[in-house]
Each structure stands twice: as C-alpha cells, then as structure tokens.
C-alpha cells in the first residue's frame, strides 16, 4: 500500500501534541504508581540506546568511523561535555578518520 507522507506528518504531530498536552490539562497530581513511574523514567534511556546502536555503525561511510564516533561521544559525554560539544566532536571524528580510510 502506498502511504501518504502528509498523513504520516499529521500522525506525528497529533500524537506528539497529545502526549504533551494531556498531562498538562488532565493530570494535575503526581503519578503515584511506582511501577508506572519507574517505567516512564527508564523509557528515554532505553529507547535512545536502541536507536543509537547499531544504527550509528551504518550511518557513515565506514563501519570504523561510526564506531569511533560512538566511542568519542561516550568518552566526552562521560567527561560531562554538553550536548552540542558531544555532537560536534562525534562529527569531527568521522570527518578526520574518513580522510584516511
């Protein structure tokens, strides 16, 4: 089946908006269920990890430059560098390495 790109965009926008606005309008109290709170707490870390790896290995021209970008990013983030710096240095790693590969 052929999918309409604007319908995709509409779904993305609609679901994103509902996620943000429903808690603001409906839930005025803190969520008290411990398991639900824990689940919501862990979701971002798991989903970002799954999206990053192994996709980063296939994003660049070579497997090795992707791996190097991952390692550089992890080391910099571990050393408390900000979001912007980590992103820029990951890119630079790939750029420099691919001059030699």
């Amino acid at each position, binding site marked *: 089946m052929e999918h309409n790109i604007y319908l995709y965009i509409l779904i993305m926008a609609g679901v994103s908006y509902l996620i943000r606005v429903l808690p603001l309008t409906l839930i005025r109290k803190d969520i008290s269920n411990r398991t639900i709170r824990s689940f919501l707490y862990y979701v971002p*870390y798991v989903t*970002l990890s799954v999206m990053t790896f192994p996709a980063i290995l296939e994003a660049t021209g070579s497997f090795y430059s992707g791996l190097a970008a991952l390692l550089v990013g992890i080391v910099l*983030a571990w050393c408390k560098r900000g979001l912007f710096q980590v992103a820029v240095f990951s890119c630079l790693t*790939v750029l420099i390495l691919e001059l030699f590969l």
Partner: protein
Amino acid sequence: MKKENIICYKKGIRHGIPIALGYLAVSFTLGIAAQNAGMTAFQATLTSLLVNASAGQYAGFTVIAAQGSYLEMAVMILIANARYLLMSCSLSQKLSGDFPFFHRLLVGFDVTDEIFGVSMAYPGRLNPFYTYGVMTAAAPGWALGTCLGVLCGSLLPANIVSALSVGLYGMFIAIIIPPARKSRIIAGLVVVSMLASFLFAKIPVFGFLSSGMRIIVLTVVISGAAAILFPIPDGEQA
C-alpha cells in the same frame, strides 16, 4: 497585555537564543536524515514546525523510510516521545494558576528537553509568557536547521554528509551517558539495550520486525523489566 507578561516574554526570548543556536546545528543533521528517508525540504520543515522533537522525528523518519503502517508510526512517536509525558506532568505543577486554561494548550505545543529545562528553572510559579518567549526564539531555529539540512545536505560532499549524520547520535549519547555515569542501573540498561538492539538487527530470526517495531518492542520489554526489577525510590524526580 499586562506589562509583567511582556517582561517575561522578552526574558524568554533572550534565554531562547542559545537554545535556537544549538537546535540549528542538531536539526541540520535531522534534515539529512529526512532527506535520506525521501522527504522534501517542505515536508521536513513542516514536520519540524509541528512536531518539535529530535528523537521522535528521527524515529518517525525511520518509519517513513521503511513505509511502515500508520499505526506503527503512532506507536513509534508515543514511545520515542514518552519522556515528554513525564515532563508535562511536572510542568503542570509548575504553571501558575492565575492564567486561563487555554495557556496550558499553548505551552504544551513545544515541550522539549531544553524548553522544559529552562521553564522548570524559572523562579517560582511559571508565567506562560516566559515559555512563549523561549519558543519564539527556539522553534524557528529548529525548523530552519531542518530545512537547511535537506537543502544543503545534497550539495555537500559525501564525506561532510557522512560526518554530519552522526551528529544526532552524538546528541542522543550526550543525553544517555551523564545519567548512566551516576546510576549503575541506567548504565547497565544502556549496555543491555545496545546489545539487544545489535542482536535483533543481526540475527535473521528477527528479520520480520521492521526497524521501527524493533525499537518499540525492545523499549517496552527492557523498560518494563527494569521497572519491575529496579523500581525507582519514592520521591525521586523522574
């Protein structure tokens, strides 16, 4: 408009400018991802204006690239943006009660990691006009960067595009690693998630799962298991 609101709005714009600059760089790589998924500059920019979510949009582009079902798209966005659900819960406590209800509908439009961050740091109860100011500066940066990413992504030499395409992953890493450093549980989760994701991608048995479905299934299973095995202590702010 009340004078106090105007002051808050202007302050918001000032705080939003550095956010806009960061967005410009990150959304540029998002634009490249959009182009790889076969989207035009208009479509990608429209998405950025309406969705305002890095991981969410990236996940959405994955579904578009794979021509996944509409249901898969909805579930994917729900999972990738689930953290905004939590942020909006916190924000609902922070918003001043002196403003009419429709302000909650507007503030909800652009809850992102960064805008949530500065809004929560606002002293006392939040004046929504402050958040509007931040949005006024930040949202165009996000859209413009995406647009430039699609347009210039195709003009740039292959090695530059190759380098820029890891920018978004760099940003994801910058979000997950600092908490992993503080908490062994999160560190373990990051490792387990990456390993599982790698296995699911490489073992042919799981080949029937699209990349979008893989992310959803792994997120629900691993986060669910972690919530049961390691519930967060009461009172800890998520």
